[in-house]
């Protein structure tokens, strides 16, 4: 039983140029326009996702530089490298960049690239909205960094507690820029979530019923629902904060009936699910890698799907564990201890299923699989340290100390970044058509693995030693210098490891060995198309007969025919069983999403300084949306439909 890819003529590897061939016609219809204009008007999900991934990596690098500066400052007690104001800006922008500009956009972009291919469709459900989401994300990120470079970087912490972040104690426009950056990134995140949900529910390949959907896609769907529920809370909270600062509302002013704790509830109700929003896609990536590299489908498909869904639900019931040191009732707090413990069960089940897959498979430890093992090793430390924090009495000692950065970086680096880097090595051949270097891959893995431990384990100890967090320095007589220096050296190792990874990417792009359609022998549909996939993904939409689309025991993949080749068209199927339902026309490339995003940018950025910005910018946005929704002339038939035999 081996993987049997689609024959060459189905994958577009025969001559794509000839307008007479199916592939030529589809390529002509689905390609981006030429030059800069084509780049700006693209509505192709892979183009947009790829530029979004690159943008997210750029923000990751910037946030990494900020982290390096912080570790340089903390390496020695009472260092005068960076003063308190600059340091506060650094840790605020580092946290905000990683959480809002890197983690969520990155996993959503990976989803937007691969989910349509994995479910056998040609594009996401709303192509122009996809483009709009990217531009809004880019504008929000540029806003934050333009602020940082003009001494207006936010300095109140990425969690922005009031009253410190309120109008009295944070003068100037720093916090307002932070609040508005939130609005941009939340719009982008909600847009991407809508895309994933609707695409997965309406455009799956025929035969891919819900119980045959790849685990990666399941993870992305669960994550997207979580985004829809959680993001509005932080957008509302940041809007309330911006209003308190700009037009003197009283949401967080206790003297006029508001409450500082209200901010904490709103923010953490979003921010705790947020970390699971970041973590669950990592689970999806691990499932994909484990299956391919153990040469068997992941054990316990139903258990993993149910566990992922229950993690999604449960994560909304944990937020008070960030607030144990506040005057909330003791009994209420205990409930959150139990809920936080409970979420360890589905997480554990998922990890046990993967171990079982490896155990009963024929594993091979190329770089992607190394990152999976690294994930298990590191994420578990993070999760276990989380158990310390969910116990109220222990949390009262350890919260707001360096134990927290230790914990969060183990879960974030272990639970998201390691799966992401594994997925990078795994899917790089599919995106670029070239293989990455295994040797450099292993070198960067080990540097990163050791680096994470050397950087963050001392931080767990520093928390127990009594060192508070968010401090720009510490006194020499505290005795914390040794552990801090060790942690900073570890940060250096991480930097070197990331550098090796970047070198690997650059060299592989330039001169890596060609990959072919299916270098790993994978089970999901993306390995049935060429590397990189053509703009239209599939010449003929495949029909799926089992969970592992390419490992099923049938012969060549069946496919459907009949979609138009003279205009952009996708097949819509029913939600549960994916029976073909209707054909749906997709828009051609257009500049309108960029214009709408620019209008949104004008509205929100002007609104930081003057409420009139919302009125004027709102009018501009209204015009842009009008252009968006303007009815199109129906296009005449340009080619005859040709029935192509299977």
């Amino acid at each position, binding site marked *: 039983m081996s993987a049997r890819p689609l024959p060459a003529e189905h994958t577009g590897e025969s001559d794509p140029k000839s307008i007479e061939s199916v592939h030529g016609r589809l390529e002509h219809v689905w390609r981006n326009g030429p030059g800069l204009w084509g780049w700006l008007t693209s509505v192709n999900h892979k183009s947009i996702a790829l530029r979004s991934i690159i943008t997210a990596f750029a923000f990751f690098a910037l946030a990494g530089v900020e982290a390096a500066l912080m570790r340089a400052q903390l390496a020695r007690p009472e260092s005068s490298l960076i003063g308190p104001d600059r340091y506060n800006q650094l840790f605020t922008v580092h946290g905000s960049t990683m959480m809002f500009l890197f983690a969520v956009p990155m996993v959503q972009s990976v989803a937007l690239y691969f989910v349509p291919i994995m479910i056998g469709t040609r594009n996401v459900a709303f192509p122009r909205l996809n483009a709009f989401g990217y531009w809004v994300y880019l504008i929000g990120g540029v806003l934050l960094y333009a602020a940082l470079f003009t001494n207006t970087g936010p300095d109140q912490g990425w969690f922005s507690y009031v009253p410190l972040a309120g109008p009295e104690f944070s003068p100037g426009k720093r916090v307002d820029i932070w609040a508005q950056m939130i609005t941009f990134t939340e719009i982008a995140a909600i847009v991407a979530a809508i895309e994933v949900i609707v695409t997965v529910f309406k455009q799956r390949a025929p035969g891919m019923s819900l119980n045959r959907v790849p685990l990666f896609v399941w993870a992305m769907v669960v994550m997207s629902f979580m985004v829809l529920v959680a993001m509005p809370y932080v957008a509302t909270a940041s809007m309330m904060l911006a209003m308190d600062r700009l037009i003197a509302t009283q949401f967080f002013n206790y003297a006029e009936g508001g409450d*500082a704790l209200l901010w904490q509830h709103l923010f953490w109700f979003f921010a705790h699910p947020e970390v699971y929003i970041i973590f669950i896609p990592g689970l999806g990536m691990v499932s994909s890698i484990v299956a391919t590299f153990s040469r068997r489908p992941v054990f316990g498909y139903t258990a993993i799907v149910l566990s992922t869904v229950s993690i999604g639900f449960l994560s909304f019931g944990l937020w008070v564990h960030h607030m144990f040191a506040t*005057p909330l009732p003791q009994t209420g707090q205990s409930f959150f201890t139990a809920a936080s413990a409970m979420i360890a069960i589905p997480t554990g089940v998922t990890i*046990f299923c993967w171990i079982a897959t490896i155990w009963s498979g024929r594993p091979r430890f*190329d770089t992607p699989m190394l990152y999976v093992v690294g994930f298990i090793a590191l994420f578990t430390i993070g999760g276990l340290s989380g158990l310390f924090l969910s*116990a109220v009495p222990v949390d009262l000692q350890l919260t707001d100390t360096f134990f927290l950065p230790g914990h969060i970086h183990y879960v974030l680096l272990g639970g998201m970044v390691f799966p992401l880097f594994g997925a990078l090595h795994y899917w790089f051949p599919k995106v670029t058509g070239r293989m990455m270097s295994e040797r450099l891959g292993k070198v960067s893995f080990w540097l990163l693995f050791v680096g994470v431990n050397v950087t963050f384990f001392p931080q767990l100890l520093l928390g127990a030693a009594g060192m508070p967090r968010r*401090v720009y320095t510490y006194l020499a007589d505290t005795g914390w210098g040794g552990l801090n220096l060790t942690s900073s050296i570890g940060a250096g190792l991480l930097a070197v490891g990331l550098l090796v990874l970047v070198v690997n990417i650059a060299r592989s792009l330039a001169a890596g060995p060609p990959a072919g359609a299916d270098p790993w022998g994978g089970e999901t549909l993306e390995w049935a198309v060429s590397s990189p996939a053509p703009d239209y993904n599939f010449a003929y939409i495949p029909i799926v007969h089992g969970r592992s689309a390419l490992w099923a025991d049938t012969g060549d993949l069946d496919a459907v025919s009949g979609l138009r080749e003279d205009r952009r068209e996708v097949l819509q199927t029913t939600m549960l069983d994916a029976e073909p339902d209707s054909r749906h026309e997709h828009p051609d490339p257009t500049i309108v999403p960029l214009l709408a995003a620019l209008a949104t940018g004008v509205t929100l950025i002007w609104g930081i300084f003057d409420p009139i910005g919302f009125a004027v910018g709102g009018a501009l946005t209204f015009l842009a949306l009008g252009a968006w929704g303007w009815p199109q002339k129906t296009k005449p038939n340009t080619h005859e439909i040709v029935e192509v035999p299977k």
Partner: protein
Amino acid sequence: MTWAGSIFDTAGGPAERIARLTWFLIIVSVVTYLLLLVATGIAMRRARARRLREQLADTGPDTESRLTRNISIAAIATTLILLVYVTATARTGKAIAWPVNARQPLTIEVTGHQWWWQFRYRDSVPSNWLTTSNELHIPVGRPVRVILLSNDVIHSFWIPELHGKQDLIPGHRNTTWIQADRPGVWKARCAEFCGHQHAKMAFDVVAESPARFNQWYVSQLTSAQPPTDSSARRGHDVFMQRTCIMCHTISGTQAGSSVGPELTHIASRPSIAAGTLRNTRENLGRWILNPQLIKPGVRMPPNAFPPADMNALLDYLETLK
């Protein structure tokens, strides 16, 4: 284990119970982690593929059911461990709660400022209420009720040797309690990001025998005496005629502003600048001359007194024991 200054360097009941729970969790975590690593390691060693696109693994129904059974056992074991965890946590939580039938607790009101601490001891006789700054004395063996208020932003009151932390939230009246079971001198600190000098917002905690505590309390209640030494008298005039009087209180004198820490007994404190510097003449001089060099962003401005005035001022401050 006495890792000085850490959460394991316990000197009071609550901290002791928390440390015990922490140790229990450490042991459970290490054992669980090792089991997981061993399982992963064994899984990795089995039937390794030699080629990239190796033939698919053939697992029969026996393997599948065995794996299901093993995972179920692991999941049940996890659940049981978590139940034990929740129970242990709940028991510790109850054990560290305020002892409701505590006899004659001491009540202290803590007000957090950016970036210093104000302590107000309540007494049954209102004229015996004591206000002091950045230095907390408590009697050994007596429960202390701590009321937490904030003057500006959220701070957090944390003495690791005695108890976990509690936040000081403006608009809310939070409470906690501490009790020292042995004498000691510890450095406590602010544990919630509160602005530029959150890093250097500490205070000294001195736990001493009830007799010595009462001695300290009575001496703190006395007002400052007018200085007799001519240099100290000149220093007194510097204090009253320059910037100092705008922000500081010295009871018994004209200085009555509560903007900054009160200084009536500054000379008896172990540290100055909210636990940042040891209380020596040289440090005090440096601090007064330019606090911004030591704690950039702090509310106290630089004071460019000429050297003669500065010496006199320091002489005066040294009389404020």
